[in-house]
């Protein structure tokens, strides 16, 4: 089960073709969130969906070589710390916690930078948590026995 590679060539070819466009769409949603519907939460889920598709089609161990579990767990922490770190930086720049006005000389630009960084943190956290959820559900009952 764990190393079973999908026998259908249709599935593997289609998923190979779709993998890059899904990630690009995720990045578009991530950075276009200011102007249209979208943002960190949705983008994270879309990027995670690409990786989940990959490990569903090509087997779990291939998916693990693509995104090693430990790196995934570190990235989970990096996302949250990026969000919290933006707050700390704005304290160091004589602002209040999560006050983006001080991040740049122009408050409006500062807000833009802050929002993009924060959304990036949210996106990284959501994507890695979803991949981690999938991996732990899929490998349940096979690691221990």
């Amino acid at each position, binding site marked *: 089960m764990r190393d079973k590679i999908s026998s259908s060539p249709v599935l593997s070819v289609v998923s190979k073709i779709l993998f890059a466009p899904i990630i690009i769409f995720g990045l578009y949603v991530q950075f276009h*969130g*200011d*102007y*249209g*519907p*979208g*943002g960190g*939460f*949705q983008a994270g*889920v*879309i990027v*995670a*969906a690409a990786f*989940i598709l990959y490990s*569903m089609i090509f087997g779990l161990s291939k998916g693990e070589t693509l995104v090693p579990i430990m790196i995934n*767990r570190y990235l*989970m*922490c990096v*996302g*949250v710390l990026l*969000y*919290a770190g933006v*707050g700390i930086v704005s304290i160091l720049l004589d602002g209040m916690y*999560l006050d*983006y006005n001080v991040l740049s000389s122009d*408050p*409006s630009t500062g*807000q*833009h930078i*802050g*929002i993009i960084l*924060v*959304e990036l*943190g*949210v996106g990284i*956290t*959501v994507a*890695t*948590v*979803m991949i*981690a*959820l*999938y991996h*732990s*559900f*899929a*490998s*349940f*009952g096979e*690691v*221990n026995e």
Partner: protein
Amino acid sequence: MNFLLINFFLISLLLITTFFIFKTTSLISVVALTGAFTLLCSAIYVNLDAVDVAFTEAAVGSGISTILMVMAAAKLPEGKKNKLINLFPSIILAVSISLILIIIIANLPLLGDPNAPIHLHVVPEYLKESKDFFHIPNVVTNILASYRGFDTLGETIVIFTAGLGVIALLTSNTLNRKTNFKKNNKKNER
């Protein structure tokens, strides 16, 4: 008028789906029906002008959540057709709660009333500032990351913690009580 008709249609579909989720015993069918349920919900959100929410519901609710539930259902045994438990008290509870909710909803402002209290406070400022000061067209992103930054930080931490919890629950060996439990059972049988 059109809006109300579409809404009514979608909500009646939701009710039908809920009824069938309640009736089905096969776990895979329940999971598939839940996916349909969340997709219908995202249609309702589009109808209510909440595009961001609809996007999230379509991606998260009917995408990832259905995948996770399928993964779980594949590892679980087929659902058995068991007798419903607590049937009588739960009917009383359901009827009384729906009566209370209907009374409350009758007192709410009409759907889509622009002068309802929720539209008069704080939000006009958000809309105005977002246009004149931030130059960010999508107000939802703006409120999410800037005005309600603390909220979103908290939510992110909740997601992170839930992920940690699932990893801890599913990949640890210490929680496996099976051997112990079986021994106890055998002792009792003797």
